[in-house]
């Protein structure tokens, strides 16, 4: 029925009631969510799980489109450049939103978007192999200070949050690591298992799925994670750190207020749906809805924090 309705509404719109009529009745056609990474990755899967219940709440189809490339910036730029009618939005994660703009000239910045909602925020963890000699963050840091640069710290991409977190850890503790960039999370994980690297930062669902091969030295959060109360945080161990891996829905700047409100509501309903919460629970991911305005302020604060860290590390261009 929904499809028929959508098609019908689309036709009515097309024959001549024009843009005004469309804006009054959002959504009148399918909504496309751009995912700036390839299918099957964490961002993609979360988006696809959310797309179902969101479509139900919106009463329109939701299509997920993967635009992969250059660390997510191609898809983020496509979102920023899309027609500002609310029918094309993007699930843009922390990297392309708050670290990549500091690394090079991009055709967008946080001010290029309207903010709909934060859709996920996964606590990150500093992980080591199951058989690593280090039991606590303190053990590892003491060793790293005695042997500067000897420990290898793998990063999934230069300037990514796991990299920024490592820079933050080095600057907060005075320890020195050798950073080794791999291309994505699978090769980084492989490098850990083959003994090339001693540690890397991953998000909690990775830790949950691979708990027989890796363990967490410290959750990089300011408070204990609700879904993983047993795991000590870096803050507990004397190094205050908070590096969530988050993402949210944004639209090109200037979408109609009605469309923004409808999307924000659908996002909230979708995130509270049984389908979404159950899936997140399995991965020990906290469900972290945040409305558009709060999300916008949060993005700006993260943007400034990462700016500072990347500048200190001399990575910012």
């Amino acid at each position, binding site marked *: 029925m929904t499809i028929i309705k959508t098609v019908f509404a689309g036709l009515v719109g097309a024959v001549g009631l024009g843009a005004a009529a469309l804006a009054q009745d959002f959504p009148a056609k399918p909504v496309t969510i751009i995912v700036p990474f*390839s*299918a*099957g*990755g*964490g961002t*993609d*899967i979360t988006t*696809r*799980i959310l797309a*179902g219940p969101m479509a139900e709440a919106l009463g329109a189809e939701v299509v*997920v*489109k*993967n*635009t*992969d*490339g*250059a*660390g997510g*910036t*191609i898809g983020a*730029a*496509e979102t920023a450049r899309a027609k500002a009618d609310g029918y094309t939005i993007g699930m843009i994660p922390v990297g392309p939103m708050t670290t990549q703009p500091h*690394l*090079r*000239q*991009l*055709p967008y910045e946080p001010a290029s978007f309207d903010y709909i909602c934060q859709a996920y925020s996964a606590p990150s963890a500093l992980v080591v192999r199951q058989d690593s000699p280090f039991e606590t963050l303190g053990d590892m840091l003491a060793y790293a200070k005695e042997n500067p640069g000897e420990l*290898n710290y793998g990063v999934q*991409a*230069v*300037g990514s949050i796991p990299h920024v977190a490592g820079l933050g850890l080095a600057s907060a503790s005075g320890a020195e690591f*050798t950073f*080794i*960039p*791999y*291309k994505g999370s*699978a*090769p980084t*994980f*492989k*490098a850990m*298992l*083959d*003994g*090339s690297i001693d540690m890397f930062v991953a998000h909690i*669902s990775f830790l*949950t*799925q*691979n708990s*027989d*091969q890796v363990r967490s030295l410290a959750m990089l959060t300011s408070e204990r994670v609700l879904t993983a109360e047993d795991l000590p945080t870096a803050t507990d161990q004397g190094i205050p750190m908070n590096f969530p891996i988050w993402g949210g829905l944004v639209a090109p700047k200037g979408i109609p207020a009605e469309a923004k409100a409808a999307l924000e509501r659908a996002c909230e309903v979708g995130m509270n749906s049984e389908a979404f919460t159950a*899936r997140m629970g*399995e*991965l020990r991911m906290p469900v972290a809805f945040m409305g558009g305005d709060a999300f916008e302020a949060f993005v700006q604060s993260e943007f400034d924090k990462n700016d500072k860290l990347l500048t200190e590390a001399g*990575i910012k261009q």
Partner: protein
Amino acid sequence: MDFFSLGLEHVLTMPALISIVIGTILGVAVGVLPGLGSVIGITMILPFTFSMEQIPALALMLGVYCGSVYGGSISAIVINTPGTPQAAATALDGFPMAQRGEADLAIGWATMASTIGGLFSVGVLIIAAPQLAAFSLNFTAIEYFALGVFALICIANVSRGAMSKGLLAGGIGLFLATVGVDHVTGDMRFTFGSFEMTAGISLIPAIVGLFALSEVFIRASESTQVKTVIAHKVGFRLPPFSEWRPRLWLLLKSCMIGSFIGALPGTGAATSSFIAYSEAKRSAPNRDKLGTGEPDGIIASESANNAVTGSAMVPTLALGIPGDPVTAVMLGSFIVHGLAPGPRLFTEHLDLVYAVFLILIAVNLVMFVVGALGAQLFTRALRIPEPLLMTMVVVIAIVGAYGVRGNPLDLVTAFIAGVGGFILRKAGFPLAPLVIGMVLSQMIENSLRQGLLLTRGSFLAFFERPITLSLFILTAMMLIWPVIRWLRSRKKEA
């Protein structure tokens, strides 16, 4: 045995069996269409798998995966355009066979080799998954570098007769893949200030342009009057066993190469089929005829690329590390279904592991049937009037080029690659080395630089590692081999 019967129970349900058949048909179809490859096929069905039960979802994905790796060979044979990068080596001998009017036989060889390669790798997966996974952990960035250098020799081997042009084409390929993000420093290279170029030159649009569009341009540039009409046999013809017998060792060796490469995360079917082809060029019974429409070439390429499918599941299932982009998507779907791959899978969910084995076996058998029936249809494409066929190729190529990442720049890439491919072919440059260069470029460069970071800048430390050293020695031997053979033959004559 208990787990085995449990696994069998999982697979012998209507939804699972239907998924196997549909998945395989769909896989062959996306494989045949240039541009639409394994990754797109898997991505297309991904949303459906979310709402399916675990086993049918797995069956659907494995069907698409194996089917697509095989399907690429059909377009390579019929229209000289590898449907997927994995089948680029198949075109080298498949198309010349089709030009002789033996497309039916070429597809027969390819189908048989693919099925055997696929089944062989399932055997490898069943017998040695945990051991092979453990072995793959001996491969750090340093070993990958050595393997990449070894694989580069293929360029020399597939361009015999036009060596300098082949090396040049290989160099162009290596260079093209450096456009975009430098993964070690995060800097941009050769983007000329264009933001779109930061995404780099994607392999699939480049292949679509190089092969499909350039083929169209070539045919358009040839006079239609002088062409002799070839009587194309339609359908599917299996070569008799007497033809197979002298080639069994080649088949086995190619299967082993494919299975070994597949088990290493991060290397894929394209690399393995080129290495196998290259090895065939060195040692196959009819090596001197390779490149002129010799079944040995089809066997080597197709058995090796399908032998990747089963063994790529080794690191995926046993370690939770995807072997290639396709298994990466599959891994994502496993996780959605609450299945956590890794060593625990083999202790806690052995029934599911057996189900995967059985599905893979079934898929490879279905693939054979789909190939045999589908060949009736595909070979008829050769009888479509050329202007119509070429128009269809252009449309499919454009859709495929855009479909990969939805980046409009990819269309420009495909067109430029088409013109470039046309010029290169007219000037007598082989195209396969260019593809090899593009496939290997990032692996070689990134692993070299990661390796140097690991050894703190010492290249000498590379030689202290046994696997790396052996690969370097093997590379040197492969390079000297032609010289030795030449010297020997001179001695005989003298």
